[in-house]
């Protein structure tokens, strides 16, 4: 819940609601991107973001995302965060 998980922004779902699709390890879900919304939303595509409870809270570089994922995996926290991320339905 409170560590968050990095995921890649794949698509803009709804520019008005500031919803994007993010993907991690083949799992996709829609998250709210209002905290990182830029003037040109298409610049978000392909970028990595740190996702907290259905909200993208910060943009990360790819290497930072990889480091955070490897730290979560080594702590055994990745499974927990991933289960939260993938198992509980998409944000509407």
């Amino acid at each position, binding site marked *: *819940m409170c560590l968050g998980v990095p995921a890649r922004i794949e698509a803009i779902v709804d520019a008005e609601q500031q919803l994007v699709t993010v993907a991690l390890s083949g799992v996709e879900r829609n998250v709210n991107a209002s905290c990182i919304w830029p003037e040109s939303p298409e610049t978000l595509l392909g970028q990595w973001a740190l996702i907290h409870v*259905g909200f993208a809270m910060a943009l990360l570089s790819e290497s930072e995302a990889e480091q955070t994922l490897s730290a979560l995996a080594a702590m055994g926290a990745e499974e927990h965060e991933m289960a939260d991320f993938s198992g*509980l339905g998409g944000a509407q």
Partner: protein
Amino acid sequence: MKFIDEFRDPQAVKTLITQIGTALKGVDPSRQPLQIMEVCGGHTHAIFRFGLDKLLPEGIEFVHGPGCPVCVLPRGRIDDAVTLARQPGTLLCSYGDAVRVPGDLGSLLDAKAAGADVRIVYSPLDALALAKQNPDKQVVFFAIGFETTAPATALTLRQARQQGVENFSVLCHHITIGPPLRAILDDPGVRLDGLVAPGHVSMVVGQSPYQFIVEEYRKPVVIAGFEPIDFLTALLGVVRQIADGRAEVENAYKRAVQSAGNAVALRAMAEVFTLAPKSDWRGLGAIDQSGLMLSDAFAEFDAERRFGLKPTQVAEPEGCGCAQVLRGQLRPADCPLFGKACTPSAPVGALMVSSEGACAAYYQYRSPQD
């Protein structure tokens, strides 16, 4: 993990440990071991998981801080959630981390087993979606966590208002990171020398909430990410500041943390929340202005108000040493309850509740002799 070659970049870890040892030579030996608090439960877990404390020189001792929101969730608040869940026609939504925590009335999972409609959600937006799908039910979201999850609650409540979702409300127990640190630093028995602050909270709040620690208490603070190298880099920063006699807020996690925090998240929080006069912390007691309640503008979404709920007070369990562990005055294994009356499957104290609590991490990764 206690072997350096198991790290992603063993050479960097080795170099940092050597540098920390060198920096420590500049610190007056009478001040050692230095007591350094890792504020965040994620860092506590990482220290034990990676055995970082075993790799570091003896001149450094960790104090495990209050930054695990599930651990510090008071038992009375769990009882409040259970009371709401038991009301007919109510659907209570909670993060998975909170449903196993027992209060006096049992846990939310116990309430679910007894027939209450308790749903585990990943996001407050999922709770809002459930409210829209179930217009004949009252949907209550149990909103817990520090500033990492509070913006999500705030932005969801804004949506609830925009979309006119009247059957949605929030049992609010959001907390803020500064006040418990002040309460610990104010304790005359506490001798902290420096703090490593959590990167993910700082991503939202920036650096300013730690400024009082350097200005009023003259203790160095360095913000760290969650990778062991990030953590050790921050620790090196703390030791160097102590050796130099400096006390500053430094950011060792610049890749994600902007010094001013996230403006959108802070604005949403300021609009939806206001500081509660007093909030209870499991293991620390009541602390003034340490939690968030819904602002007058959003009071209609306050589950306490909507259901006339009177918050429950539950006393700390007898013999529990959590308060001393949080202040660096007791090691987890020295608590009389540790591993006997208090275990991860039957936690008595706050720090045994979640895997990010110091006692649970100690129980999982250490032998009692350590």
